[in-house]
Each structure stands twice: as structure tokens, then as C-alpha cells.
């Protein structure tokens, strides 16, 4: 299946790509469209695009929306969702120290990658690592 998001991926979109690959669609193909595009051809699922189903809702990040929409039960995903909420959205409480660091690492990762595709693939390693550390 094709999954689309805006160019210049960051902390939330890298996390969504990881989640989609690991839990929803192993053969997921990611496409990157110019910032601002909100309509997509049939059969393409947009994520982290304003107004989309898999996007920010009720003050939560898009990763949170994917976990909820696909009813993913792994409790560690809730924890990661909280980390990304704090990294990517305006929150009152800060209970996840990894959040700020993760945000800056993911934006740096995009800077050293030749394109979004490469950034997403590398981001998957970051989230594998985060998951492993939390699972310990």
C-alpha cells in the first residue's frame, strides 16, 4: 500500500513510518508530496497531513492517531506516543526526558540524509533503538 506525507520529514513522521512498517504494512511504500498538498489519489493513505484521519487530533501527534486508529495494543507504543506528543506538540506537562533529544536528532537525521526516503529508513533504526531501550 502507498502511504503519503509532506516532504521534509521530522520526529512525528519518521515515527509514523516506523509504526506503519512494523505493525501495519510490512511492504509499505512511502511517498513524499510538497508541503501544503491535502488531496491524494484513491488508494493512497495520507499521514501527518492536516485534516487527514492519521493526523493531529485533540492535541495529540499523528503517531498517537495511528496507534488509536489501528487499535495497536502494545503498551510501549502508548509510551512512545507520549514521547512524540512532547517532542512535536505543545504540551503542558513534560514527563518524558527523551522527547527534546529525539526531536533534535530526527531533524538532524533529515539534514544528513539525501532525501526523505533515506531519512525514513534511517529513522526506523532510531525508533527500533528507542523501542529496545524502553523494553529493557
Amino acid at each position, binding site marked *: 500500500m502507498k502511504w503519503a506525507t509532506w516532504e*521534509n520529514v521530522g520526529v512525528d513522521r519518521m515515527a509514523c513510518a516506523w509504526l506503519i512498517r512494523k505493525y501495519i504494512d510490512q511492504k509499505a511504500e512511502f511517498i513524499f508530496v510538497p508541503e501544503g498538498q491535502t488531496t491524494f489519489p484513491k488508494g493512497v493513505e495520507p499521514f501527518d497531513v*492536516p*485534516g487527514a484521519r492519521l*493526523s*493531529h*487530533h*485533540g*492535541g495529540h501527534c499523528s503517531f498517537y492517531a495511528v496507534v488509536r486508529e489501528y487499535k495497536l495494543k502494545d503498551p510501549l507504543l502508548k509510551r512512545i506516543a507520549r514521547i512524540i506528543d512532547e517532542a512535536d*506538540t*505543545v504540551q*503542558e506537562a*513534560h514527563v518524558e526526558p527523551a522527547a*527534546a533529544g529525539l526531536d533534535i536528532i530526527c531533524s538532524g537525521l533529515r539534514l544528513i540524509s539525501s532525501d526523505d526516503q533515506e531519512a525514513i529508513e534511517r529513522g526506523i533504526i532510531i525508533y527500533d533503538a528507542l523501542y529496545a531501550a524502553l523494553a529493557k
Partner: protein
Amino acid sequence: MGESSQTWLLLSYKVPRAPSANRVYVWRKLKRLGATALADSVWVLPLTRQTREQFRWLASEIEEMGGETTLWESKLLDGAPDKLVSEIAAVAETVYRDILKSLRKKSPDVAALSRRYQEALALDYFGSAMAAKVRSALLAAKGEDD
């Protein structure tokens, strides 16, 4: 002063009257972003990748509440862009000044002050020179050099 090169991001919005919690929610978010109200329901921030993203998300949340939003990118033609800059810069600088004051007191709570510093840093859009001072003062209070 004539035309300024600073690009500003303007969010104008309407939120339905009820439930009133929604209006408070939007207001709190705007304050947490360090935005300034130009008029009722017209808020401004300097344009950065982050502010554009945050305003966009807030706009889509307001629309989910049944509200209406318009997001603008704009430049001031005349008037006093410096006034707007200092108003927005003051948000972080007020916190910085407060931290420096607290650090001069007897046995300050350095951990709590460090957290406030980080929060202020996130909305220090014009890179205040005070940030470095606060950082050094926090480290000095812990007996560390920067």
C-alpha cells in the same frame, strides 16, 4: 523604519461560543507558543518551520471544534516592526530575568529553574543574548563551567 525583512505568521480564528473550555484551550496553546495577540483572535509569531507547523496544527484543531481559521504569512510595510519583535522577545526574556533573580537567592532550586530555562528557550524566537547568561548562571550554580 521602512519595510522589514522579518516574515510574520498570523492566525485569525473563530471558536464556537460553547463549550467555553475550547476557547480557553486555544488561548492556553497560543500563550504556550509565545504568540502575541494583535487584536481579538488574531495572533502573531515570527515565521519559522516550527511556528508554521504549530500554527497549522492548532488551526486544524480549531476547525475540528467547529471553528474557522485563516493562516497568513505577512510582512509589515511600515509601523514599528521593532515593537512587535520586542513584545515577542519579552516572553522568553521575562522568564530569563526571573531565573537570574531566583539564582541570586539562597539555595535556589537549580533543577526546577533549569526546566524553566528549557521552556523559555523553546520560545526564544529571536535568540536573546540573555539565554547564554542564564545557561552560564545555571551551570555556575551547580559548580560547573560552561
